């Protein structure tokens, strides 16, 4: 399974994302933002970081990079796309996901583990989880508060497109404690927490590895078990 990890100037979770994808068995590689060639990627991940220094707004400039055209096409064709943290911000700015991520309600940068619940398992990135699974995963963001117009939020809830929700506490004031969502087709997912930072025994947490393993299993099924 070929997995493209997009890099922008300022992306800094690319190496961890590549590593986590490879650990799950993917043939993972980088794609620089200036390239419109995803090199036959089966899946795309936009990693965390500060693309373009978060200048203007987080993800506001990155969304116009040449690679996003290819990502959009890939998504339109039903290909899996995962945006992690800054990646989630980029996908919202690009209009591939609804709503926006704004400054944390308490104005501080939060870098610590939180607990989230998996609420939607009909996405390529969560299909390996049992619905309702709660796990620990780190967040690291200053702009992680999810906001959306009331009718958009209501639709997300009604259609089961809230993928991850903070439990026990809402660290950043996200509306409805939303930590991750899916687009209408469910192949595009954005999440603020960092599964790639909690996917190894060495890091003390392994549940997040399921995000990448779900993808592997899902695409193996599509390919009839061949790779």
């Amino acid at each position, binding site marked *: 399974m070929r997995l493209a990890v997009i890099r922008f100037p300022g992306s800094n979770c690319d190496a961890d994302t590549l590593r986590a994808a490879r650990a799950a068995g993917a043939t993972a590689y980088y794609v620089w933002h200036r390239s419109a060639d995803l090199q036959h990627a089966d899946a795309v991940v936009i990693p965390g970081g500060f693309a373009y220094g978060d200048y*203007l*707004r987080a993800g*506001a*400039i990155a969304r*116009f990079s040449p690679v996003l055209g290819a990502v959009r096409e890939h998504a339109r064709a039903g290909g899996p796309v995962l945006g992690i943290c800054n990646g989630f911000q980029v996908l*919202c*700015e690009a209009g591939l996901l609804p*709503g*926006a991520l*704004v*400054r*944390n*309600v*308490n*104005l501080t940068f939060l870098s610590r583990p939180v607990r989230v619940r998996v609420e939607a398992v009909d996405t390529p990135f969560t299909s390996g989880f049992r619905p309702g699974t709660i796990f620990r995963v780190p967040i690291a963001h200053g702009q992680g508060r999810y*906001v*959306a*117009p009331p009718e958009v939020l209501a639709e997300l809830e009604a259609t089961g497109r809230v993928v991850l929700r903070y439990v026990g506490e809402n660290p950043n*004031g996200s509306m409805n404690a939303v930590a991750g969502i899916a687009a209408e087709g469910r192949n595009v997912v954005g999440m603020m927490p960092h599964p790639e930072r909690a996917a190894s025994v060495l890091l003390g947490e392994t549940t997040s590895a399921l995000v990448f393993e779900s993808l592997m299993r899902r695409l193996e099924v599509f390919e009839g078990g061949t790779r």
Partner: protein
Amino acid sequence: MAHFDVEVRVMPRASLLDPQGQAVEHALEALGFRGVTTVRVGRALSLHLELEDGDPAAAEAQVRRMCEHVLANPVTEDFSIAVREAT
């Protein structure tokens, strides 16, 4: 060629909680400034525009498209534009 000086103001939408504005409001209060309410913090951009068409309305229309396309996020922000003919 017509030259315009443009100022754009981007502010958080009124319905959006603005914790930065609240923090500034509390700071002002702590410093003894009375009667301050509803502080909102946004962003100002200035740019110089050169257009064939000397009509300020054309300049404003272009800047409006810039705002809708990139300078502001319509989910979270409102914008206002001021166009001035540059001498």
